């Protein structure tokens, strides 16, 4: 969407509701997960992953060589009610960018990974 400037100065209908901001705790959990993945700290990754998701999360974790990546970027975010799908990209000086998608959801205030998918060689989670 083009930047329309200061909305309050624009004639016409103004928004009737506010945009839902992502919870800071969810973003902190994502950062914690991504840092653990870059370090190759599988124990921390497992601690954030319920048993039924462990296999797919660890498949992503094992595909990331430890300490090869030093930066991460959250390049996409979409929510389904209160769960967040995040697309992340890891980059390092001598490494091909690593892209994957995961979903975070909270139970009793604790954000955990609910699904994970390596996007290497695919355009989206839809690709077969």
């Amino acid at each position, binding site marked *: 969407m083009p930047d329309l400037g200061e909305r309050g100065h624009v004639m016409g209908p103004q928004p009737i509701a506010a*945009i839902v901001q992502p919870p800071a705790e969810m973003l902190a959990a994502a950062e914690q997960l991504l840092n653990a993945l870059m370090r190759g700290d599988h124990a921390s990754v497992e601690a954030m992953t319920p048993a039924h998701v462990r296999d797919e999360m660890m498949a992503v974790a094992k595909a990331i060589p430890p300490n090869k990546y030093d930066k991460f970027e959250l390049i996409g975010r979409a929510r*389904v009610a209160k769960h967040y799908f995040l697309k992340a990209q890891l980059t390092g000086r001598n490494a091909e960018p690593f892209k994957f998608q995961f979903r975070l959801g909270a139970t009793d205030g604790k954000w955990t990974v609910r699904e994970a998918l390596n996007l290497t060689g695919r355009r989206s989670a839809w690709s077969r």
Partner: protein
Amino acid sequence: MQRMIPVDKLARPEDHILLPANRTRNARSEQGLSPGNAMPYEDDFLKSRMHGICGGEFQAMEAAGRTLYDFPDAPWEFQLDMARQVWDESRHAEIYMKLLEYVGSYYGEFPEGEVLWSCTQAEDPAARVAGINRGLEGLACDVFEQLIRIAQKMGDTIIERSVDYVLADEITHVRMGSQWMRKLTEGDPERFKRAQEFQDRIDELFNFGPGRKHIEDVDHVKQRINDKEIEIDSGITIAREARLLAGFTEEEIDRLVKGFGKSSAY
């Protein structure tokens, strides 16, 4: 020439999240929500419904464009109608992007699904228009008519008039679909039957979620939207009047209600 294009070949920005329907359903089920899309009694209903429609408008625009491109030997008038539909759907996408902003959302807040694009997966232009123009756009009539009634109860003329403007086009698209489905299959009952079967499959595709009913039969739930508490439909309804205007027969509408015993879309 490749006529069956996977949904994730559609041009989308890198920050966009495209999901198969089962992943969205899993995410909703895990949160104790009905597995289909946001229902009228959920807080996110308006945002989520408009987001789904906006994605549908994008994919409908792309679908009409592909139909134009895929069938260069189709009658010139057919191609003109498809070109006109691309133009209509692009305006609808713009309208819904503005409406999303209006209700405090933006395109990309929720994932985009692939279900609507599957309506394009037919090799025959007669089946394409049966599926997209009659199946999908017929469904849009139902969803838009319900949104208009909700906006009327909210006293929100912005949503009411914007959606009514789009609904008028959708009625035209359904009529266009009915006309071309008949014309392209003239003298070939087998081809007509295959096109009808494709449309039936699409009608079935949306056969998930809670019950679809006539407007007068549907239950209501209280919903707080901003500073107002209003009564809205608890499920998806059939827009009988709009469908009749679009050229559906009473029999076809009854068949949809019976066949769509458990239906929800967007």
